[in-house]
């Protein structure tokens, strides 16, 4: 039964992050997600310092605020004349350092330690349960389900708008779509996803899960909807294979899942028919051969 909950949590992380990650890749904001996954730590620590509790609700609030703050600060520095990559780098390292400092200073004895934040403890997920509406399920599963619901609702209602602001922001602006508001609400969603996932699997895996499956799916598909389906599929596959390999070699589950994301990406990248790396190599060789023939 415990194994079931761990697998379910991993798969839910794969689905939720896979779904959210699609627009991260398409909007070229993958590194902002990386930044948010670091600064969420800061939000959680501050939420803990204010409320003195580690309840899921306040963690979500803290994370959402930290995500918005990150997005806002990056925009602010950019408008102040700093290039984007440096703006992201400055903001997330500073806030992350502040978060680590606060933990060592004020929250050293609590469950909130830095290693837990980085690597998560998905193996302990089944023991921390919540009872809602008579169902008793692990807290991580509840949080992931709620955030997944948010994600689905957002994408269901704003699918068209998201597509338009992503692919043709100038046109979107000219027909009166609030592109700034869309950007911020999407980033809030990314922060919520991050915090729900990282409590169980750690910050490392969240970034891997947000970017990896969607990037792989990007190679596989030519429409947004297909990309979403592929992305969720790759997320689940990485979670399940990663779990069993980690069990086999007795090592970090979250780390192994991240490694599997890398393996899946590489498989697709190298072997995919028509535009995989090997296929391209063959084409290049063939082209050279025909050229040689023509020349001779």
């Amino acid at each position: 039964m415990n194994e079931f909950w761990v697998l379910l949590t991993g798969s839910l992380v794969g689905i939720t992050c896979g779904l959210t990650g699609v627009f991260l890749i398409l909007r070229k904001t993958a590194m902002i997600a990386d930044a948010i996954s670091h600064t969420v730590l800061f939000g959680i620590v501050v939420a803990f310092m204010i409320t003195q509790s580690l309840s899921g609700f306040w963690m979500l609030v803290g994370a959402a605020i930290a995500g918005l703050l990150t997005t806002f600060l990056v925009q602010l520095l950019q408008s102040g004349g700093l290039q984007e990559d440096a703006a992201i780098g400055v903001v997330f390292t500073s806030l992350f350092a502040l978060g680590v400092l606060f933990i060592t200073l004020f929250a050293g004895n609590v469950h909130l330690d830095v290693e837990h934040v980085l690597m998560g403890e998905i193996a302990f997920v089944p023991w921390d349960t919540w009872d809602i509406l008579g169902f008793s399920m692990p807290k991580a599963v509840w949080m992931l389900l709620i955030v997944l619901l948010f994600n689905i609702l957002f994408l269901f209602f704003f699918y068209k708008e998201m597509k338009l602001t992503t692919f043709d922001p100038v046109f979107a602006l000219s027909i009166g779509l609030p592109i700034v508001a869309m950007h911020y609400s999407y980033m809030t969603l990314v922060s919520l996803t991050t915090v729900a996932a990282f409590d169980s699997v750690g910050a490392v895996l969240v970034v891997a899960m947000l970017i990896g499956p969607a990037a792989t799916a990007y190679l596989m598909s030519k429409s947004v909807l297909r990309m979403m389906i592929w992305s969720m599929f790759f997320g689940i596959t990485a979670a399940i294979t990663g779990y069993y390999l980690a069990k086999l070699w007795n090592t970090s589950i979250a780390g192994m899942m991240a490694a599997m994301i890398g393996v899946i990406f590489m498989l697709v990248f190298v072997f995919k028919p028509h535009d995989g790396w090997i296929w391209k190599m063959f084409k290049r060789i063939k082209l050279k051969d025909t050229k040689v023939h023509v020349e001779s």
Partner: protein
Amino acid sequence: MLTGNLLWVLIGAILLGVAAGLNGTFAFLQKQSLVGDAAAHAALPGIAIAYLVFQQKDLPILMLGAAITSALAVYMIQWIVGNSKLKADAAIGFVLSVFFGIGIVLLTIVNQSSAGNQSGLNDFIFGKAATMAKSDLVWLSSSALLIILMCLLFFKEWKLMIFDPVFAKGIGLPVERLRVLLTALTVLTIVTGIQAVGVILMAAMLIIPAAAARFWSNHLGIILVTSAFFGALSGALGTIISSFRTGLSTGPIIVLCAASLFLISYFFAPTRGFISKSLKKKAFKQRNVVKEAANHE
């Protein structure tokens, strides 16, 4: 107060700050700041592999392992971007998280082995400059000196390569090789700093001083000197502050010192700073209002 070891640590941190400040400025101007972040994260699996293979924690061996995986990560980012439709940000984020995940996997394996628990490899995540051994500090300092020397040596070539690559190629500079050299030096900077600052925050040493220095001037020479000065200052302050209390990791403190310098630069730098810009905007508006009023009359 400056007992023997702390003095050494201080010298190491200052040299590291200068090296990262100089090298970071070149990376910053090439818009490669986040590649440094990926390379720093990717050092973790290399450290773990080096430890697993050689079963010892001599710094040169661990540094070699770290350098190999960092360089591999940078190469992979370029390979992915060059061979697919994925953009640089996705490639960086992907490589960074996967390499770090593999690093965590290997670190867990190291920690489970009998001697691994005392290996202190976990310190590489956040850095422990204040407790570094003297022999390690000698390595750190000489490596940092090498980086500083190289930056001074190739100043003119890199300047040309960054601002006018076409012209540089035209007068016969080996632009591609210069670029590879710069990347290699970035990797070396990261590898030098990881034991002191940690893999997660090492990128900050490359990014923040350079970004802060950019606010003070438009001349590369002045930016480099300012960036090196900011790097040295935050390295020194961070080391001193973190030595006051046990349990404080050096990395975060150094980064926070650098971040404070950045904030000061962002607000108070002349001409490019926030306050000076807002004042200028205000003055401009006022002048226009006066003009308009004059026109109306």
